[in-house]
C-alpha cells in the first residue's frame, strides 16, 4: 500500500511538467504579436505598447530561449532579483488578479477549501441518508417524492437556482448575504489581535475565540452550500437508492433478517456499508469538483474562491492565469483520485486483501 501511494505521488510532478510543455508548445504556433494579445485586454492606446510587451516578455526570441526563460526566469542586472521561472515557483503574473498567479491561488484556495469542508456534510451525508430512506421505503410516498425531487434537482440550472436563493434569502428575508464576510467581521479579521493559523476563516475564527466571526462566515456560506447541496442531492439520492436496492436484494440480507436481527441493524450495519462503494466514487468526484472551485455558484454569490478567479481569467483571455489554475486543478485531481483509491481499500476489505 505504501509503495503504491509513493509511486502515485511521484508521478504528479512529471505529469504536470508534461502538460506545461505541451501547452507551451501549442502557444508557439502563434506569432509574437498574437501571443502579446494575451497580455492586454484591448488594443493599447499607444501603438508602441505592443512592441513593449513583446520585448518585456521576450516573445520574439527563439523558442528554446523562451522556454529557458519560462523555466528559470530572468535576473534584473541592477537588483539581482529574479523574475519568473516556474522551477522557482513563479507561474507568471495574473493580469486579471493583479498579482502573481501563485499568490492568487494561495489567497483564493483557502476560501474554496473552507466552503468544501462545510459543504461535505450537507451534500454527501444528507444525500446518502435521503437515498437510503428512498430505498428502504421503496415505492412509497417518500420514494416517489424523493425521485421527483431528484429529477427537478438535476434539471435545475445552478445559475437560476442561485439567483432565486439570492432573491428569497437575501433580498426578501435578509438572512444570508452574498460575499465572504460582513464589514464588521472584516474589520475584526484585519485587526492585529486576530491571528491566522490555518488561513481557513471559520477555523481561524474558532481558534481566535471569535464566535461572532465564525457565525458570520457560516452565514455567508449558507447560500452557496444550499445551492450546491440541492444540485448534488439529486445525484447522490439516485445512486445511493439504486445501490441500496441492489444490496437489499442480496441473499445475506435475507439471512440477516432470518437470523432475527433488528431492521435497523440489517439496514445500517449490513446493507448500507456494502452499498457505499459506488457512492464513494461519486463522493470522491464531488469533493474534487468542489475543490476545483464551483464557478457558477461562486460567481452568483460573489464568493472569492478559485472558481470565480478562474472564470474571470478565462472570460478575459488571461491565459497565464488559466494555465496556472489548470496546473493546480490537475494537482488536486491527481491527489484526490489517490485519496479515493485509498478509500476504496478502507471501505471494501476485498480490495485490501487482493
Amino acid at each position, binding site marked *: 500500500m505504501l509503495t503504491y501511494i509513493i509511486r502515485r505521488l511521484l508521478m504528479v510532478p512529471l505529469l504536470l511538467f508534461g502538460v506545461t510543455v505541451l501547452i507551451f508548445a501549442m502557444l508557439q504556433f502563434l506569432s509574437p504579436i498574437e501571443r502579446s*494579445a494575451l497580455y492586454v485586454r484591448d*488594443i493599447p492606446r499607444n501603438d508602441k505598447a505592443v512592441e*513593449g510587451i513583446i520585448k518585456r516578455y521576450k516573445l520574439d526570441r527563439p523558442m528554446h530561449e523562451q522556454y529557458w526563460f519560462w523555466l528559470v526566469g530572468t535576473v534584473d542586472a541592477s537588483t539581482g532579483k529574479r523574475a519568473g521561472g516556474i522551477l522557482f515557483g513563479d507561474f507568471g*503574473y495574473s493580469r486579471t488578479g493583479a498579482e502573481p498567479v501563485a499568490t492568487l491561488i494561495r489567497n483564493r484556495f483557502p476560501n474554496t477549501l473552507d466552503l468544501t469542508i462545510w459543504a461535505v456534510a450537507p451534500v454527501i451525508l444528507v444525500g446518502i441518508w435521503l437515498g437510503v430512506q428512498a430505498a428502504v421505503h421503496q415505492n412509497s410516498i417518500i420514494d416517489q417524492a424523493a425521485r421527483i425531487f431528484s429529477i427537478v434537482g438535476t434539471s435545475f440550472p445552478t445559475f437560476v437556482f442561485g439567483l432565486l436563493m439570492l432573491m428569497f434569502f437575501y433580498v426578501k428575508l435578509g438572512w444570508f448575504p452574498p460575499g465572504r464576510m460582513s464589514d464588521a467581521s472584516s474589520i475584526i479579521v484585519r485587526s492585529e489581535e486576530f491571528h491566522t493559523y490555518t488561513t481557513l476563516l471559520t477555523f481561524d475564527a474558532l481558534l481566535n475565540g471569535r464566535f461572532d466571526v465564525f457565525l458570520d462566515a457560516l452565514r455567508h456560506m449558507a447560500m452557496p452550500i444550499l445551492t450546491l447541496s440541492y444540485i448534488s442531492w439529486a445525484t447522490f439520492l439516485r445512486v445511493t437508492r439504486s445501490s441500496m436496492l441492489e444490496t437489499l436484494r442480496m441473499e445475506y440480507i435475507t439471512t440477516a433478517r432470518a437470523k432475527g436481527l433488528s431492521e435497523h441493524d440489517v439496514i445500517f450495519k449490513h446493507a448500507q456499508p456494502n452499498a457505499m462503494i459506488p457512492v464513494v466514487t461519486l463522493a470522491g468526484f464531488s469533493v474534487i469538483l468542489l475543490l476545483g472551485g464551483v464557478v457558477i455558484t461562486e460567481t452568483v454569490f*460573489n464568493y472569492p474562491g478559485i472558481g470565480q478567479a478562474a472564470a474571470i481569467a478565462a472570460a478575459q483571455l488571461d491565459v497565464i492565469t488559466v494555465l496556472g489554475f489548470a496546473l493546480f486543478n490537475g494537482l488536486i485531481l491527481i491527489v484526490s483520485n489517490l485519496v479515493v483509491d485509498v478509500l476504496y481499500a478502507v471501505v471494501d476489505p476485498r480490495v485490501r486483501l487482493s
Partner: protein
Amino acid sequence: MRKMFALLSLLVVFSMALAACGAPAPAAEAPAVEAPAATEAPVEEMGPASQYIGSGMLDGNGIPSDFFADVHIRKAFSYAFDWDIFIADVLQGEAVQAYQLPLAGMPGYDPEAPHYTFDLEKSAEEFKLADLDHDGIPAGDDPDGDVWTTGFRIQMLYNQGNTTRQAIGEILAANLGTVNELFSVEILGLPWPAYLAGQRAGTIPIMSAGWQEDIHDPHNWYQPYTTGSYGGRQNMPADMKAQFKELLDKGVSETDPAKRDVIYKEMNQLYYDLVPGAILTAGISHAYEQKWVEGRVYNPIMSGDYYYPMSKTAEAKDPTIFNNVTFGDAETLDPARVYDTFSGEIVQNVYETLVFYDGGATDKFVPMLAESWTVSDDGTVWTFQIRKGVKFHSGSEMTPSDVAYSFQRGILQGGTSSPQWLLAEPFFGAGMDDIAAVVDPEGSVYDDRALMQAFDPAALVAACEKTKAAIVADDAAGTVTMTLAGPWGPFLPTIAQTWGSVMEQKWAVEMGAWDGSCDTWQNFYVSEPDINPFIVTNGTGAFKLDHWTKGEEVVLVRNEDYWREPAKLERINIKEVDEWGTRFAMVQAGDVDITDVNLEDTPQADKLVGEVRFFNTEANAYDPAVPLCSIDETKIGVEKFIACAAGETGTGGPLRLLIGRPNILQTVIIYNFAIK
C-alpha cells in the same frame, strides 16, 4: 512505472516537435512587421498580403490596397452610415451623433460644425466621383469602367464578442449594398489575438476605433486620430499627416482659449474635408445612485467618483459608510503608472494634484496642493506656489521637493503602457512621447529596461539632468518651477489628472522607489505591475487606503488630519461584484449606494428609479432632481423618462437616475489608406 516514463518522454518529444513546427512562424512574422516601415506610398504593385481585401484588385471581387486613399471613397462610405438606426437600435437611444471630435466644454466644440449625414444619394455621387483606376476620369463617366461599374468586395473586421463593432459593420454593409448592388461588405469576427495582429500588421481595411479621453482637451482627441496611434494604424500619408500636424502643433501651443477655439474649428473643417475617418457617436450618461446619496460630483473626466464632497442623508442605514459596488479590479496603485478608471479612482481619492476641477466643470480649475500659479509671458515657465501645512498620511509635511520628485519620477519611469506620454510631450516637445526618445532619438530603448541600463551612461545622465532642470523645487521660497519645451494649452488639464499626483519622496525611497539620483534612474525605467507591484499608498488626500483585497474589495478610510475639513464619509467600501444579478440583488436589499450598470441591464435597474436629474446642455450641468412618474417604453433614450407634473407623486423608487450628459468616449470608423 516504466510505462509512465515512456508516456511522458513521448509527450515531451511530441511537444518539442509541435513547437519546432510552430517556430518558423515568428521568423516569418518579423519581415512582415518591418515591411510597413520600408513602404511609404501606397502602390498596388506591392502585392498586398491582406486577406481581407478579396482579390486585391478592382475587379468586383476585392479592392486595391489604395482604395481608401481616394477621398471620394472615404466620403462615400461616410455618407452611408445610418446614425439614427445605430443610436436607436444598437445604443438604445443613449448616444448622440458627434459632429466633430472636440466635446462640449472645450475649444473647438461647435454644435454647427460641418458633418456627414446619412444620405445615400450623396454617397452614390461620391462613388461616381472616385477614380480608382487612376486614369483621370471619374468612375461615373469612365468608359473603361471603374468602381461604380465593377463594384467591390471587402471585409470589415471586429473582435469576437464586440457586438457594437459588429453592428457598425452591418449597418454600413447594408447601406452600401443599397447604394449599388455590386458593393459587397462582409462582416467578419476574429479571435482577439488575430484581430490585434491584423491591426498591427496594417492588413485591416476598415475598422471602428473608439477613444476615451485622458484629459478634457481637443488635443487629446485630434492627436491620436491624426499623428498618433490611430493615424499610424491607418497608414495616413505623410503629406496629410503634415497638414494635421501643423494645426495640431499650433493648437496645443496656443494658450488663449478663444484663439484655440478658432484653430480647432479649422481642424474640424480639415477633418471634415479630408475625412480620414467617419465620426460616429458620443455616448450619454445613464447613472444611478440611492436617493439618500448627496454631494456626488458628476464630472466625466474624473476617474470614477470623488468621495470628498459626498455624504448620505440620515435615512440611510449607515450614513457614514459608503458602498460602491462595481465590476473589474485595480491594476496598480502607482500614480505614475495608473492608466485605468478603477485604479484611477483610488489614486484620485488618496492622492492629490496641484490643481483640480471646479466641481463638475471640465474646463475650470481650482487650487489644490498649489495655492496659486503664474505663467511667464511666453507661456513656457509655470511657477506654482505650493500650499503649506499639508501632511501626507505618513505624517510628514509636504514640501515643494516632494512635488518635483513626483513629476520627475513619473517622467523617468516612462513606459508606453503608462500615461507619462501626456507629461513627456509638454516638457520635451510634441512628438516626444517617452523619456526613451530623449535618451536615444533613434528610438532603440523604448520599453526595454535592460537596453536602457546598457545604454551610453552619459546620455542617461543627460536625460535625467534635463528632466530635473525642467522641474525645479525651491523649498525656501515654497515654489515649484516647471519649464516646458514651448507654450502648452492643455497643461492645467494634464496635471489635474492622477499622473500629476504628489508623493512623498522619503516614503517612496523607503518603499524601494527611485532615490532621486541621476545615476540610478534607469533601474526603474518601465515599472510594470508584474515586476513592481506598487500596492502601498501615502498621499495627501481626504481618504487613506485601508486595504485592497485583490478581486474582492478596496476600502478607503477617512483621513482625520486632512488639510481641509475632513470628509463626511468615514469609510468607502468599493466592492467588486462582477455578476450583474448579484449586484442588482444588493441594490434591492439596500446594501449598495452607487453601482455601475451596463447598458443592456439598465431596463432592469430603471424599474427602481424614483427620481431623475436630466442633463441641461446649455448650462452644461444636471438640473435638480424631479420625481419620476412613468417610463414610456415606446420611446428611447432620455425621452423614455416622464417626470411628474406638479402635484403628482412619483413611483417612489429608491434610486435616483442621472441621464443625458455626453460622456468622454467617442467612436470613429477609420479607413486604412494603404492596406498591406
